[in-house]
């Protein structure tokens, strides 16, 4: 019975959202507002029970939450967690104009940590790693001969990378051979955007198919 009610609610909400395709209407607005409200509540609960409780309260005062969250039975208080607790409280001072400047300390910590952690990883994986990935042998040998397909792929990659970089190089006027390479770079970018658009279409159709399949299950449950 409970499953049937769930199915009906989900099906009706799906129709309410789809009704926007005809035109904006109160049913769509209702479903949209309901979704926003439920999402906000869901993430607030997740934030409390997955972040605040296990990562702060359980560390400072384990006995207070031992019955509510997953943690070792012999957990001892870790008093150095008072520091992030203070930073967390400082973040809330944004709500009081007179002392809102205190929140900058917490923000500075968050930004500093994120920048420090991400910088090295992005530098290694996205900068150095991507340069390395772009350096492929133009002549690819396989089974005693030359792998023509792989060789063409490497050449296309090399030409594409160089021409796209030239397109974004603005310290020299895009004329002559340099301009031709720049125009070729635009073509490579356009093909990239086209491929990304194609993938986006596939993603959206997949989601639509999933919803239609669900509505089919709902109809099957009725008849």
């Amino acid at each position: 019975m409970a499953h049937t009610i769930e199915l009906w609610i989900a099906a009706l909400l799906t129709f309410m959202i789809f009704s926007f395709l005809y035109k904006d209407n109160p049913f769509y607005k209702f479903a949209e507002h309901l979704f926003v409200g439920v999402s906000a509540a869901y993430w607030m609960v997740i934030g409390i029970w997955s972040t605040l409780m296990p990562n702060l309260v359980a560390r400072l005062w384990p006995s207070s939450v031992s019955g509510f969250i997953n943690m070792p039975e012999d957990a001892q208080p870790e008093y150095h967690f008072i520091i992030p607790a203070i930073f967390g409280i400082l973040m809330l001072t944004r709500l009081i104009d007179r002392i809102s400047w205190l929140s900058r300390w917490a923000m500075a910590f968050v930004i500093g940590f994120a920048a420090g952690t991400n910088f090295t990883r992005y530098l290694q994986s996205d900068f150095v790693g991507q340069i390395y990935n772009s350096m492929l042998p133009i002549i690819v040998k396989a089974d005693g001969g030359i792998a023509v397909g792989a060789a063409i792929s490497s050449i296309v990659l090399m030409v594409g990378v160089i021409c796209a970089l030239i397109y974004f190089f603005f310290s020299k006027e895009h004329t002559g051979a340099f301009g031709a390479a720049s125009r070729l770079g635009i073509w490579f970018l356009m093909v990239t955007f086209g491929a990304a658009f194609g993938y986006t279409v596939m993603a959206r159709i997949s989601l639509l198919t999933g919803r239609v399949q669900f509505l089919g299950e709902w109809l099957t449950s009725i008849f």
Partner: protein
Amino acid sequence: MAEGKRDIVDILKAIDRRIIFLLIALAVILPLVFHLVFSVHSSPIVEAIFDKIESLPPGSKVILSFDYGPSTVPENQPMAEAVARHVLHKDLKLYMMAVWATGPPQTEVLIANVIETDFPEKVYGEDWINLGYKAGNQGLINAILLDLKGMYTTDIHGTSIDEFEMMKDVDNLTDMSLILCIGSGFPGMREWVQFAGDPGDIPVAGGVTAVEAPLLYPYYPRQLLGLMGGLQGAAEYEAALVTKYPQYKASSEQAIQLMGPQTVAHLVIIAFVVVGNIAFFAERRRDRRRKA
């Protein structure tokens, strides 16, 4: 042509967008109703994941991270279920976790559809384990690269991690033979490459939504072992799986079946793009003639 009389260009330009929506809906509904299925063949980028799992010796450790939510289930769930089925069939140890808070409910769906259905003999804590969700995004990945047990002191049910047989020789991510991420955004595959695969020299592979796939191809093949891009990627993995292991044909063809409507809808969209371009050039030609 006399002013005021509508020609084909005017008719095409005035098509109500709701007609397009209706045709797309029909393109999706009719193939589902008539069970239209096309054959799918796996590409090298998907085969690379399949071959890697095939090559791992029994007992190897594979981590599967559920970094998606209900909104992308049609794309991501078939991927997760296909790779999990393959991992368990090969007698590998499956460690399931989530960097997304919406991941654990999808893990439960997988447990019901794959483990309880196809592998009821597999023992929890010996063959597979559910570590659940932890907050921290890429910070979590960064932390478990060095100390997994420090972050995961219990499994999802609150049982101490030290009580499980399959956790006894696991200290951090470098003990894993393969990281599989099924993702749909941030944090996801890119963060697994940046914070675990590259620094730990651990093979990373998995599947992402089609929207995200083009952003990840540059990592293949040196930083990313393989990639399932969208529903097509999932279907390709299912095709590879059922070709080698036909016993999973009934349970592991979700994505293959959904590729029918996908293909028809794509044909309709391509037709619209062609018609739109014809209308554009015809209008330009008509305007030139009028000016002349």
